[in-house]
């Protein structure tokens, strides 16, 4: 195996890393070259990207629906805060 050829296992790690930061050119070329020949790693990559797309659209949906503090929690926190304020203001 030549130094610029990577195993499937190695490539899966590099593909994952390329989703988190820009890889050096030599490694990007290594991925490209491997993907041209390897249908399984191509599939792997598509699946990772699919999962990311799915989660990002789930996040958008959540942001729109607006998750909020429960009334109970809000009340509890409010009481706690109210307990602090007067103490500090009128020692």
């Amino acid at each position, binding site marked *: 195996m030549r130094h610029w050829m990577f*195993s*499937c*296992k*190695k490539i*899966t*790690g590099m593909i*994952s*890393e390329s*989703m*988190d*930061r820009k890889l050096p050119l030599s490694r990007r070329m290594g991925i490209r070259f491997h993907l041209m020949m390897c249908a*399984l*790693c191509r*599939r*792997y990559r598509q*699946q*990772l990207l*699919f*999962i*990311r*797309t*799915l*989660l*990002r659209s*789930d*996040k958008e949906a*959540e*942001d729109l629906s*607006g*998750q*909020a*503090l*429960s009334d109970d*929690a*809000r009340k*509890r*926190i*409010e009481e*706690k*805060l*109210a307990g*602090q*304020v007067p103490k*500090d203001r009128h020692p």
Partner: protein
Amino acid sequence: MTGNIQTDDDPISWLDQYGDALYRFARARVRDAFAAEDLVQETLLAAYRSRDGFFRQSSMKTWLTGIMKHKIVDYYRKLTPEQGEDNLDDFTYSLDNLFDTREKWKIKPGEWGGDPQNVFEGKELMATIHDCLAGMPEKMALAFTLREKEGASTGEISELLQTGKDNCWVILYRARMLLRRCLEINWFGRKK
């Protein structure tokens, strides 16, 4: 305290204005809903105590979010080690299993169906993803969710996890491998 407008040092008005946003921020980072509520409370209390440190250059929301980030780092620092690194290593074995000795695929990635749009049986699929994440060590699931869902940088993630970026990439890699495999078994496998 000089020159502060009334609403600016009233923590209850902060709760009204930013409570939900802070809660969402915490929930995206902490699995437990009660812990997230506590984090909102701690953040507002800490903000109130250090209100003199707030400068108008930054927005109130940014300032509060900054305080919350520290609180979340503390929260994870306090988690017991078993919920952290130790656990992460158990998963190396199951990943190694996916490849043969020449590092070629042994358990081959399956066909997930041609058109990704078709797979958008939204809620059910998301539920399966959440089940898969629930089976991972909390820190691994956290790193994964922050990166893939929230779009957080590995910088923020490594700060939260108190680990180097190198390790962060490793954790994310394992998480992706595990989740991909988990979905393949529990979602795409089931459909056949």
